[in-house]
């Protein structure tokens, strides 16, 4: 990969599920150091885009390409995408009863370290790392001993996703509705984790990392400043701009584009 090639380059991406086309020609380029917000009403295809990037097999890519740090992302199974540095924070994190959160995190981290040619961490080294991350994110250490997401509150699940992000340190973090259902404290934690992901030890912005924030509401963008904002509707990006676009949306709503949030029940087109 040469240095000025983007982290993520999506060209004319079409994807379908059960024979129904959801993404209808997405173009998106994300470079190192950038934070892109993808906004749009419910049902637009935001989660579909996120899941396709992570490699969910239920979705079929019918056209287009996705290049991740110079590699054909679509050719890889989900685990290889993760190992190369793609991370998706799920809108609905899964519960895995019977598997301790700490074991899950350690196994994931070591799978990725192994792929990168780094030595695997033993239990003690891992514990030291995770303690430091938990302290930074103010995550309750009790979450480590519980089964992955089992019986976690909505906020705990989202904090746990951010903890995974902080431990796995991907090149590309896709956060799908990471802000939904969070109280202000949890939202701050999530923002802290997300921002830390983008900042190097010397305080400068990391140009080997990028982030895609999928969000339904603008609230999150008060805590994580995007560099780019896109509006997705019915499987297409209708408008792209800077942070101002999010502010306009907040003021005017999606009506400005001639459509309404389907969730709001207006049903207008």
């Amino acid at each position: 990969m040469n240095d000025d090639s983007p982290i993520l380059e999506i060209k004319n991406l079409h994807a379908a599920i059960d024979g129904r086309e959801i993404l209808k020609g997405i173009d998106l380029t994300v470079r190192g150091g950038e934070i892109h917000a993808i906004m749009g009403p419910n049902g637009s295809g935001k989660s579909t885009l996120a899941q396709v990037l992570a490699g969910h097999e239920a979705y079929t890519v019918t056209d287009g390409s996705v290049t991740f740090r110079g590699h054909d992302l679509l050719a890889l199974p989900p685990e290889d995408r993760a190992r190369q540095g793609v991370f998706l924070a799920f809108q609905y994190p899964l519960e895995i009863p019977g598997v301790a959160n700490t074991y899950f995190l350690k196994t994931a981290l070591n799978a990725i370290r192994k792929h990168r040619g780094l030595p695997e961490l033993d239990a003690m080294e891992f514990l030291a790392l995770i303690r430091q991350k938990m302290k930074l994110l103010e995550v309750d250490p009790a979450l480590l001993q519980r089964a992955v997401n089992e019986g976690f509150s909505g906020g705990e699940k989202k904090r746990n996703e951010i903890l995974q992000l902080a431990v796995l340190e991907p090149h590309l973090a896709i956060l799908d509705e990471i802000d939904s259902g969070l109280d202000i404290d949890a939202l701050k934690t999530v923002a802290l984790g997300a921002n830390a992901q983008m900042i190097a030890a010397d305080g400068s912005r990391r140009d080997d990392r990028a982030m895609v924030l999928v969000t339904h509401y603008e609230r999150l963008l008060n805590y994580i400043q995007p560099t780019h904002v896109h509006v997705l509707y019915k499987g297409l990006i209708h408008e792209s701009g800077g942070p101002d676009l999010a502010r306009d949306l907040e003021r005017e709503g999606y009506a400005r584009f001639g459509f309404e949030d389907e969730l709001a029940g207006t049903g207008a087109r």
Partner: protein
Amino acid sequence: MTGLVAADRLGLEPFLANRVGHEPAWLVAIRREAAARFAERGLPDRHLEDWKYTSLTALGELPLSAPVPDLAGIVVTPARALQAAGLSDWDGPVAVFVSGRLIPDASRLGDLPAGIHVTGLSDRISAPAVADLLKRPLRSDDGLADLIRALAIDGAVVEVADRTVSERPLLLLFLSLPGAGPAAVHLRNLFLFGKQSQVQIAEVHAALTGLDASGEKDARAEGTRAAHLSHQISQFQIDAGAVVTHTVLQREDPGCVYVGRLEAEVGRDASWTSNALSVGAELARWDLHVNLADDGACTILNGLYLEADRQHVDFHTTIDHAHPHTTSRELYKGVLDGSATGVFNGKVLVREGAIKTVAQQTNRNLLLSDAAQINTKPQLEIFADDVKCSHGATIGQLDAAALFYLRSRGLSEDDARRLLLYAFASEVLAFVPEPMSRALSGILLKRLPAQGDFQEVSR
């Protein structure tokens, strides 16, 4: 089958000839009567409701009786026996039975807690409590039960004195000698728990393969398919207030037909927990019959079966709520791969007057391939008012969404599958005491993503 053929196949007379002078007349009479009964009805087959989905035709023309095994040349040490059972690091008390016979040299019974006695059945027949149990009819009533009553050569007797309390399990190893010992082994084990005793018993049933008499490796390598029958009935008498946990791990070799029957009488305010773990044998049939025989009696039955290739497993459980305020809870979980087949039949009988009975039954199955099959059936028969009975059964595949979640974090598809399987099984493992939980999780963990430890993986 005609009576003559059946009796011939049993080889009863030569068998009895060997025992003349060793056994009391009443026992010989029981053997003759049971053999005659077997001649009438033979092995159970699909005409019996309880054998609808399980066929013993795998036994073929196997002789059902054989002379008492000559163990003179077999050298078994505790270490060798524990290794065969997969429990090499167990340093607690252990009683080793080879083809049903207690081998003192292979056992470690010196450090048994006071109040616990282990003997071989053949040495203990004259004890009144033992004789009394042997004379009583069995709960199991079919041709297999006849075989046990006619041909049982030996087995374990565990007697626990009133108020004996011991944290550490007593380990019993039942080792078979496929290809060398008798083709069929019929055992009777008797467990007598005194009032308010609190003990744990753990059993492993496995093949003693890979060694000949002199301890050298021989042709009977692991995995040899020598057809043999491992057949046992264990009776448990649990006196008032006793709290007993009994765990069996069945990891017989692939040529084995395993029949394990557990019959428990649970007294007033007493409790019997059974953990039945079935991973070996080509066919394993389990019958558990629990009689909650007095007020406040309680039983907890847990089971885990892991089947692959063409293995078949069948769990039949019967809980008899004969008295008020009795409680039962069942949790059976199974994983079936390849063209493995399984049966779970859970009968709960609540007799008239057994008010305030609580009975809960759960059977969950994961099918990992299209060819794998499970037949699961609850059978609730309730003749009392004011009871709480529930049951639930599920058959499903590994959760695709959870698999994707794990893979999206870098776990390979194989590792993600294994982790989910382990998670599924761990709900049962949580009930299993050491050293069994360690052995069993060892079997499961061998294939986990990282070298984990049971405590570490589990929530």
